[in-house]
């Protein structure tokens, strides 16, 4: 019986070792390719008697406002420079809520290629004259922040609110 116990113990150690090795190799690959990690969370903005609060959600009703928060963490050992954080405005009826980008100094894009500081403007010809008009925020498809340098072990958070278009919430 002692032998069988030893075998079982050995097997357990083997499983733990294998698991550790796998985890290590995964962590290594992660760290090697992505010194910076990104973690996205979605919250529903609930307005109550005590003001607004954020509730983690996987569901939304038309008219709801969702706040997306992204935590960028430098898990590596060296500084990450020129960090540019991009948060899309997802398809399916979501629209950027004006002035909700945090940090406020954000850029926006309609196509994911050309970015400009918010609020976006465009030049159109109307009645033969060139006029500059503000692009409706509902047309924004991407938000971007220039976070600069992220030291090892440090993290930066960006957030923005999106409204699910449709009937006003009842």
């Amino acid at each position, binding site marked *: 019986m002692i032998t069988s116990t030893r075998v079982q113990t050995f097997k357990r150690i083997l499983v733990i070792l294998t698991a550790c090795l796998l985890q290590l190799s995964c962590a290594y690959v992660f760290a090697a*390719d*992505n*010194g*910076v*990690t*990104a*973690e*996205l*969370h*979605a919250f529903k903005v609930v307005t109550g008697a005590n003001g607004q609060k954020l509730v983690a*959600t*996987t*569901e*939304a*009703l*038309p*008219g709801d406002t*969702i706040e*997306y928060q*992204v935590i*960028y963490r430098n898990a*590596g050992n*060296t*500084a*990450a*420079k*020129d*960090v*540019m*954080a*991009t*948060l*899309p405005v*997802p*398809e*399916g*009826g*979501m629209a950027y809520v004006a002035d909700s980008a945090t940090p406020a100094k954000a850029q926006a894009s309609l196509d994911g290629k050309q970015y400009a500081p918010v609020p976006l403007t465009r030049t159109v010809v109307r009645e033969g004259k060139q006029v500059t008009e503000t692009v409706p925020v509902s047309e924004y498809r991407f938000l971007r922040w220039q*976070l600069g340098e*992220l030291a090892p072990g440090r993290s930066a958070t*960006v957030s923005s609110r999106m409204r*699910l*278009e*449709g*009937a006003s*919430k*009842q």
Partner: protein
Amino acid sequence: MKLNPVPHALVLAIGLVAIGIDAHAAATPAGTSIINQATATYIDSTLAARSATSNTVTTIVQQVASVTVSAGTAKAGSVNGQVVYAHTITNNGNGADNFTLGATNSGAFTMAGVAFYADANGDGIADNTTAITTTGTLQPGQSVHVVAIATLPASAANGATNNLVVSATSVFNAASAANATDVTTVAPASVMDITVGSAGSGALGAGAGVEAGAVQTKATTPGTATRFALYLNNAGTGTDTFNLSASTDQNFGSTLPEGWTVTFKDAGGATITSASVAGGANTVVYAEVTPPAGATPATMDLYFRAQSPTTNVTDRVHTAVTVTAPVGAELKVSKTQALDANCDGVADTAFSADNITAGAVPGACIRYEITATNQGSNAVGAVVINDVTPANTTYHLYSLTTGAQTTQGLVIAPLPGLTGLVQATVGTLLPNGAAKMSFGVRINP
């Protein structure tokens, strides 16, 4: 090459569906997954460009109920009659939903038998007689037409109103509902007003009841028909049939004078005795009035009446017919006489066409008056009134002022004591104009 029409039909169908969705799809459909993923780019310590990608976050769009009911309308209805109200129910939610139809009514009276019926083509008429209580499943943005039919109770008073609140309530979320109010005002089933010549409030004879004076006078000659255009205006809500009649008595207590005929005809010229008029509409009928061939030229009041034998709704209109003498028979000549017993040239009695039965003894005198009247509608010219001294009399002249006289023109007469022609050359007589010649004779002693 043989063309296959199916692909064209498919393209068209797809186009229509796309338009339908674009026009109505306001909210993101329930069940839609909204997926988001953040990224970052940066430069690492080896100056290599790198990127980081976050986990994906999925948000599932939940169903929300929303419904609209098209606005209500106002209608007039009559007791025991039905009113039909068309409504369009639209699912403005983001998921398939079914809606319960409901109706409550309030006001001066209560509607009976309120029910909903399908009206697929939206023409405001129920498709069948099967009542429905729900809309059936409607996709987001989809609409359905229904009609609400209600019956006015027999007790409803004219002018009273009822508010019928039609509602649609989401089965998915009973808290989501919409309604619209239809207003019914009780109006008489039929209201008659006869007008002459045209329809409407400004027409001749507009307004209820009989007019004090003739609203239209038509001229005709004996034996010739004249025609009145009578508009039967039914301001009620329902169709009614009205019997047509004519009388010279505004209360229709007497028949027409002998020889007179009145024939009613419809717009197509067919002879009718009654006319059907829909609620809120008018019908024209023609009254052809014919005086008898021997009718005396005169103006006669004539009343027309339309009366429903079922509802007793009625109206009368006042007209008149002026009979004028026909061309060539315009002049009417009448002769009257009076006794002048003492031959002083002055009639002892009023002139009359009656026989003188006393006092006409030899030596007494008789005065005559001959009147010519133009009963035509045009002037007549070269009028000459002729008479002769009757047998057994001689022309009598008491004084110049009592000799042969005429009110118009020149007069000639025999010498006093002789017999012969007495003649007034009158000349032209205007319509309704008259000239009178007068003279005296003495009965031979």
